[in-house]
């Protein structure tokens, strides 16, 4: 029961991070391997403002979101768009964007190390709270609720508004979306920026209960990628289920075997997805 509740709470936050990557890869078609660093930046902002000014991480969220949106939009316009324009095939774009975002991720890590080279340790709402007979820290619950609220808002936007529909149209086919009068480049830039903002906010939330440091981004990138692939690229519903599943398995492995093996567990899941369902949990096999 302990495992179930902690696992689901962790999975909720993972779902938010994977949603960010899904918007970037599923819609803008940019494999962003600096995704984890964006997350750690969100965590660093929370840590910094909490230690220096005593600002609550929940308030930081409202600061991080617009900043990350603007930053990611600029990254797309300045660094990614030239790659999109010169790429002849999706394969070439993948290689270019992978290399370019690797560069960005190392630059982010290098900058964060010079800002704060140690663990981002702070304590916010670390009080015990009990649900269904299980004791969890309040910060985990708060992060989960915030993640659900943001995720629900994004889903509402995607499925109930006109601009959200345009984003989904681009994720289905850039060519067809262009034919029906959608400005694909603008929607892609927008989706990339929203995705970055969602990831950074996820990082702010996660930093309340997981101690981050500058070099941890790559592990979160891996996890987000595993979730997105397991759920099926562009499939939000699949990603949510996959995130909850990963949260559960990781918590189970950490509790029963060893906390050092969570990445190994994630790899086992990844490997079985690649072997048995490379098209995602709910995806149909391409013919």
């Amino acid at each position: 029961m302990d495992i179930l509740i902690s696992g689901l709470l962790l999975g909720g936050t993972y779902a938010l991070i994977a949603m960010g990557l899904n918007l970037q890869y599923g819609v803008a078609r940019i494999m962003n391997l600096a995704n984890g660093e964006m997350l750690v930046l969100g965590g660093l902002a929370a840590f910094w403002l909490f230690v220096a000014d005593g600002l609550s991480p929940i308030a930081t969220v409202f600061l991080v979101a617009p900043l990350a949106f603007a930053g990611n939009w600029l990254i797309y316009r300045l660094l990614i768009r030239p790659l999109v324009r010169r790429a002849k095939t999706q394969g070439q774009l993948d290689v270019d964007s992978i290399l370019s975002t690797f560069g960005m991720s190392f630059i982010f890590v290098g900058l964060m190390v010079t800002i704060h080279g140690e663990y981002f340790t702070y304590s916010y709402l670390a009080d015990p709270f009990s649900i269904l007979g299980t004791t969890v820290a309040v910060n985990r619950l708060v992060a989960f609720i915030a993640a659900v609220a943001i995720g629900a808002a994004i889903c509402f936007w995607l499925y109930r508004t006109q601009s959200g529909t345009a984003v989904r149209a681009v994720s289905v086919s850039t060519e067809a979306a262009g034919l029906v009068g959608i400005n694909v480049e603008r929607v892609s830039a927008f989706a990339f920026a929203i995705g970055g903002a969602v990831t950074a906010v996820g990082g702010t939330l996660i930093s309340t209960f997981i101690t981050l440091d500058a070099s941890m981004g790559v592990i979160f990138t891996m996890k987000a990628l595993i979730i997105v692939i397991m759920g099926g690229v562009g499939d939000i519903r699949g990603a949510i289920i996959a995130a909850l599943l990963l949260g559960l398995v990781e918590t189970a492995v950490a509790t029963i075997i060893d906390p050092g093996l969570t990445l190994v567990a994630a790899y086992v899941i990844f490997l079985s997805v690649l072997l048995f369902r490379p098209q995602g949990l709910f995806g149909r096999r391409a013919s």
Partner: protein
Amino acid sequence: MSRGEAIGLMLAIIVVAVAAVLPLILDGYWLSVALTAMMYVALATSWTLFSGPTRYLSLATGAFFGIGGYLVGLGMSDYGLSFWLMAAIAPVVATALALLIGLATLRLSGVYFVIFTLGLAEMIRNLVSWIQNNFLGSRGLYVLTDFTDADIYWMLLAVSVAIFALGWWINRSRLGFALRIIGSDEEVAKHVGIDTAWSKVVLFMVTGFFAALIGALVAPRYSYIEPNVVFSPELSFIVVVMALLGGIHRLWGPLVGVIPFTLIWEGITISFPNYTTLFLGFSFLLIVYFLPHGVVGLMQSLVRRVGR
């Protein structure tokens, strides 16, 4: 043998001869820099054997290299086995692992393969640390041999020559031809009847074999082996940057990238140790935006422009 090939062979012999006498001239610090450079020449060239023609970016180098170093340490320290035996076993283990990874990921698109190899070194490090702490006892592993830096350098030189010879042979073989078709268009390759998955897996095994062999040969240099040090994700990225910087369309391209990069890297490590990550990041951006075909590609297009 054509005239061009004869000249190429002559040049290669001269370069190898010069490289072979270097340890007699250099000592201390510069010998260790030369040793590092030779290690990266071998790693980057063997990386290019697979990633060059197929355009599948492999980040598994650190994992295979770590397997080489770790197995040598484990065998010598805990089981009293000889260095040579372990240096022979380690590449076989890495090749088997490469086979499994290749079968699981190389049938799918290149993105999945990159992602899978991205966390591989870290994952194996976690797994090995756990096994060592729980089952083997957490003693350190020692690799004590009487090899000098010069000996290790010569061994790596021999391995590099072997890699170049193999690369030359593959380029001329049916396999190399098949790989080039896969790299330019995988669909076409499938339609002309190339077993694309199998060709990629075989080449990936070759890079795995060499990375582990190099890791094993370099292990005596560090004497003390710890999983946290030998399984270095950073190594995989350095190798990628070096190879792409030089250019991966020629067998000797990576060589052009390795030597300047090693010198700059050593300089930064000594003078500004906190900025190596930043430097690595900017190198990636430099390659993507200004040197998409590497230094060799840039020189070739310059030569072509002048010749016109």
